[in-house]
């Protein structure tokens, strides 16, 4: 790694280019493998050769946040004040309050920031604002917080514009690319539910009129696997990707429709004319599974508030449970017939 923690006395250098290890790290973090340990030490870092008048940027000790910041600052001489957020990114840590007023005040004190710079300005990413009260930081430390743009890539324009943002650079976007980048995380997140469902429905497929048969699991189990995997991917990947184009504002509703569509398609493709009860059962179960996963995507989306999520869950969770129970009942009936 080409940077180290800055000691209080002699700050060391951080480079604005990404090493191979950094790049590989970014891939791993996005797919949520081992992201818990992806931290760097909090403290003050130097980028280039900052002087007493250079800007101070505040970041989280989530390495990806920090790496993106130093890449976007390439060519500038600046200080970076890294807060202890326990490896959590700025936005989430701000919501919890770890990226927050008290931690900024503490780091300003602990690093002796005031002895490195002659000014009293801090540039904090705007997404840190839910945790950072600018007037309180000012009152306790004397430093005035300027909230920079939402995206690190707009920082240079922000500086060039005299530390000013416009409507675009201060708003959160949630475009196709943002949503697709989140897909691997989504897929990994609910994996435990998927495995449980696969085991449950696999075992269920052994039931028949005469009792229970293990060879039947091998015969009919694959149908369960196909429907469950389709529903899972529909809720965790397709629905997020197609979010604005699916009907309903409720994520659960979007997932439900998408789940019905893809499972309906599957029925037409693999099993036209097969047992009606069984197919209706899979339609309902797929809708419920996809709806549940899509609803969980509210956590990744950047425009859903808690009151809204609660409201949608009051309706969709009971619906998902009902669809699943009816689906399982129909499935068993179809097997006993």
């Amino acid at each position: 790694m080409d940077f180290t923690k800055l000691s209080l006395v002699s700050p060391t250098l951080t480079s604005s280019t990404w090493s191979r290890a950094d790049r590989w790290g970014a891939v791993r973090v996005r797919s949520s493998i081992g992201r818990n340990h992806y931290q760097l030490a909090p403290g003050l870092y130097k980028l280039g050769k900052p002087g007493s008048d250079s800007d101070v940027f505040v970041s989280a000790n989530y390495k990806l946040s920090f790496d993106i910041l130093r890449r976007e600052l390439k060519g500038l001489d600046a200080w970076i004040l890294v807060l202890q957020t326990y490896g959590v990114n700025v936005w989430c840590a701000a919501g919890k309050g770890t990226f927050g007023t008290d931690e900024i005040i503490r780091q300003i004190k602990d690093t002796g920031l005031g002895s490195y710079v002659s000014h009293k300005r801090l540039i904090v990413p705007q997404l840190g604002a839910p945790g950072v009260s600018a007037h309180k930081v000012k009152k306790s430390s004397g430093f005035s917080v300027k909230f920079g743009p939402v995206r690190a890539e707009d920082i240079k324009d922000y500086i060039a514009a005299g530390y000013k943002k416009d409507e675009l650079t201060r708003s959160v976007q949630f475009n196709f690319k943002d949503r697709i980048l989140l897909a691997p995380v989504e897929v990994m997140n609910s994996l435990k539910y998927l495995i449980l469902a696969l085991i449950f429905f696999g075992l269920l497929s052994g039931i028949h009129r005469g009792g229970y048969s293990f060879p039947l699991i091998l015969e009919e189990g694959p149908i369960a696997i196909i429907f469950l995997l389709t529903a899972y991917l529909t809720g965790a990947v397709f629905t997020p990707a197609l979010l604005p184009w699916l009907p309903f504002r409720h994520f659960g509703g979007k997932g439900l429709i998408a789940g019905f569509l893809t499972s309906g398609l599957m029925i037409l493709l693999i099993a036209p004319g097969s047992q009606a009860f069984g197919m209706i059962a899979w339609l309902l179960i797929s809708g419920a599974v996809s709806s549940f996963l899509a609803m969980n995507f509210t956590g990744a989306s950047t425009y859903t508030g808690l009151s809204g999520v609660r409201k949608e869950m009051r309706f969709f969770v009971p619906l998902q449970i009902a669809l699943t129970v009816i689906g399982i009942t129909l499935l068993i009936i179809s097997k006993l017939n």
Partner: protein
Amino acid sequence: MDSQIYLKNVSTLEYDSSLCIGCKMCVEVCPHNVFRMVDKKSEIIDRDKCMECGACEINCSPGALKVKQGVGCAAAVISGFFKGTEPNCDCGTNTNCC
């Protein structure tokens, strides 16, 4: 950007314009452009865009803005329900909020 609106009439955002000192902080911090300045006072353009992040409230020094801050994350609501706590974003473990 209609696709950035979630459910209508659910946000807990409240604004008392008589307390506003026109500092513009709410405009600066809101990630969804809920506010604009009109005659040196803040004005809510569209409450339905608010995602209850709480940034405006803690940066409004005279206390003109109030909002119940929370994470809009179904997984957090579920785990909060089972743990008997308020939903919170336990990103350290496995939730998808970040």
